[in-house]
């Protein structure tokens, strides 16, 4: 018996039943009914939008754009020049523009999905600009602004959202690790990397990004334990954007997140995540501690996800407009603009030039995405192993023969 090669064959591929979409179906927002009377439940009311006077919150710029003094953290931004401030502003504006372009590209079918950072620009630019070139960053999947600060070409971030790769950049060329979709996993990688940095006697630091939802994962708790026990030079940067898809922070924790650090034996601080100066200062402080051998820090950037969780999410099902409006008043970009204008650090020309730079960035990203080729079919078999693998070779050869059987027919 031999296997007959079925060379003469017409493709019989039918499109039927191939691809559905994950597009969310809209419907009415379910209200919630209370717990049954017999069950003991504790309830706290959800406090939205912390006041700017919150003593827990490190703030250097008020939402109105007023510089406020902070004896502890001012030294970390003491040398900042008007040019630096314009740079931070530019970073935030361009990142927002990039993000808006990506959202539009998703709507037009160029990307399969997009996770917008809208509202989190200050947390990301402030912390990202605090890092040094030799520091190492471990992002989750929304850190487009941090990637920008690290010099990663924004177009590279779009490959995985377009579905042409599962990563898209060399983590070592900018010390910016690949995005991580499994919630919380990267906090352990960051800690291990930091342990390695310490072993090497280097004075670099490591920063791990994650969300408030991620703080519930075992991996994150374990990373805190390891970082504390080994005094690893790592900064845990939690962007508390108030929501993990449909679940508010209260569904993850009963204490303010930054306070968790105390139980592990390292400091935690809550910073106004919509204040780029404060984020810069606090992250610098934390990174400096790490460099000085003082171990890990937890920074909770108190911010807000202004858009949907991703383009397939429908936030109207779980949150109302009032909350968003309250946070819009604290917009990170607007706040710095007010400060720049009030202190005459930027003129109309600057803003106009930035506007056209933004448009150019949008165009460039759009063109780059459209020009991104679909991967070659054989890419499936690439890089599963570093050393090669007999089974992969065998399957690749079978696949080649299978593809060739269509090529005989003129392809399809």
């Amino acid at each position: 018996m031999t296997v007959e090669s079925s060379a003469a064959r017409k493709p019989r591929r039918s499109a039927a039943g191939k691809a559905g979409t994950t597009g969310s179906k809209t419907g009415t927002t379910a209200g919630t009914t209370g717990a049954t009377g017999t069950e003991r439940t504790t309830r706290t009311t959800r406090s939205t939008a912390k006041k700017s006077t919150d003593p827990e919150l490190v703030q250097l710029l008020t939402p109105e754009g007023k510089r406020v003094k902070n004896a502890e953290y001012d030294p970390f931004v003491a040398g900042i020049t008007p040019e630096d401030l314009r740079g931070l502003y530019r970073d935030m504006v361009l990142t927002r523009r990039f993000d808006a372009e990506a959202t539009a590209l998703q709507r037009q079918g160029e990307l399969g999905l997009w996770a917008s950072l809208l509202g989190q620009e200050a947390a990301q630019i402030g912390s990202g600009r605090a890092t040094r070139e030799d520091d190492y960053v471990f992002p989750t999947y929304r850190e487009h602004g941090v990637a920008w600060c690290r010099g990663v070409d924004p177009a590279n971030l779009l490959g995985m959202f377009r579905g042409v790769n599962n990563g898209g950049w060399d983590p070592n060329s900018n010390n910016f690790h690949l995005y991580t979709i499994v919630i919380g996993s990267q906090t352990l990688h960051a800690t291990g990397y930091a342990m390695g940095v310490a072993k090497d006697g280097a004075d670099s630091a490591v920063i791990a990004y994650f969300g408030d939802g991620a703080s519930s994962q075992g991996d994150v708790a374990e990373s805190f334990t390891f970082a504390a026990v080994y005094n690893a030079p790592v900064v845990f940067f939690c962007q508390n954007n108030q929501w993990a898809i449909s679940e508010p922070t209260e569904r993850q924790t009963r204490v303010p997140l930054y306070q968790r650090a105390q139980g592990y034996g390292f400091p935690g601080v809550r910073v106004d995540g919509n204040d780029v100066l404060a984020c810069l200062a606090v992250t610098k402080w934390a990174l400096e501690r790490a460099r000085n051998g003082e171990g890990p820090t937890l920074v909770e950037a108190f911010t807000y996800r202004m858009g949907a969780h991703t383009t397939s999410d429908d936030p109207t099902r779980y949150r109302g407009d009032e909350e968003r409006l309250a946070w819009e008043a604290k917009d990170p970009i607007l706040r710095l603009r007010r400060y720049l204008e009030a202190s005459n650090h930027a003129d109309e020309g600057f803003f106009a030039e930035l506007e056209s730079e933004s448009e150019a960035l949008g165009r460039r990203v759009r063109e780059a995405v459209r020009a991104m080729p679909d991967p070659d079919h054989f890419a499936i078999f690439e890089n599963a192993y570093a050393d090669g693998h007999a089974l992969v070779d065998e399957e690749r050869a079978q696949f080649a023969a299978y593809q060739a059987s269509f090529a005989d027919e003129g392809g399809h």
Partner: protein
Amino acid sequence: MAEKMAMAKAINESLRRALDADPKVLVMGEDVGKLGGVFRVTDGLQKDFGESRVIDTPLAESGIVGTAIGLALRGYRPVVEIQFDGFVFPAYDQIVTQLAKMHARSLGKVKLPVVVRIPYGGGIGAVEHHSESPEALFAHVAGLKVVSPSNSSDAYWMMQQAIQSDDPVIYFEPKRRYWDKAEVDPEAIPAPLHKARVVREGTDLTLAAYGPMVKLCQEAADAAAEEGKSLEVLDLRSVSPLDFDSVQASVEKTRRLVVVHEAPVFFGSGAEIAARITERCFYHLEAPVLRVGGYHAPYPPARLEETYLPDLDRVLDAVDRSLAY
């Protein structure tokens, strides 16, 4: 009264019925409450049954399964949702080392009627970790039952049966079939949970599949019929236990078997079926049992999944190869 409904809706109706019938039944998971789950499978359940029965959990899969085990120890029957296939692994430890083994370790005294719902498989253009088929990793573990419906009616009834089972059941939902509609009759008398079903009679070859691949096999049988070949299509429905008797009966008739699944072929459920059927039907087989499935490669980015996933051509190619022996 039978009604046509999408699979996601059928599971929703089934959960609703179970919550209604038994106050010990609970639904738990990330975003299952107000949002109704990312696929809306639990839509409206929290509204109707309250936050103490339909529970939005913290974002922690080990926590979800671990606490479900505790609730089951206390007499509850939790149905937990893992949001996507690739996110079950933080819970894998709890499922494999605890959920699967506690009945045996307690000498049969402890029962853990926990259902773990996992939307699985590809074909929806998602990012990584959202399209995998890890069923073999669970079927390999003694103490777990593993099932996967292929249509709305089975989705409805198998959920009822899974919840009633005193064993833990891993309930794999073929997410790309969530929006396919079929008749559901809530008054029907369902087939046993672990019984395979012949969905199409044939004489030349048996196609065996479960979950998302059943529909593909039916399409393949249609296409083959146009070429004068008569294929039998078996919906296995359950991966563990697996109804080898039904497969054997079919193979004794057709003498040829092709197993189709999305999961990688290497060490997949097809390997187990091929081995057992070769043992049982050695003298009936006219060809080796062939398998069609994923490659030994990470699930590829969305733009390559059409190439990666079994499609009509790959199934028919295997059919041709089998018939050529």
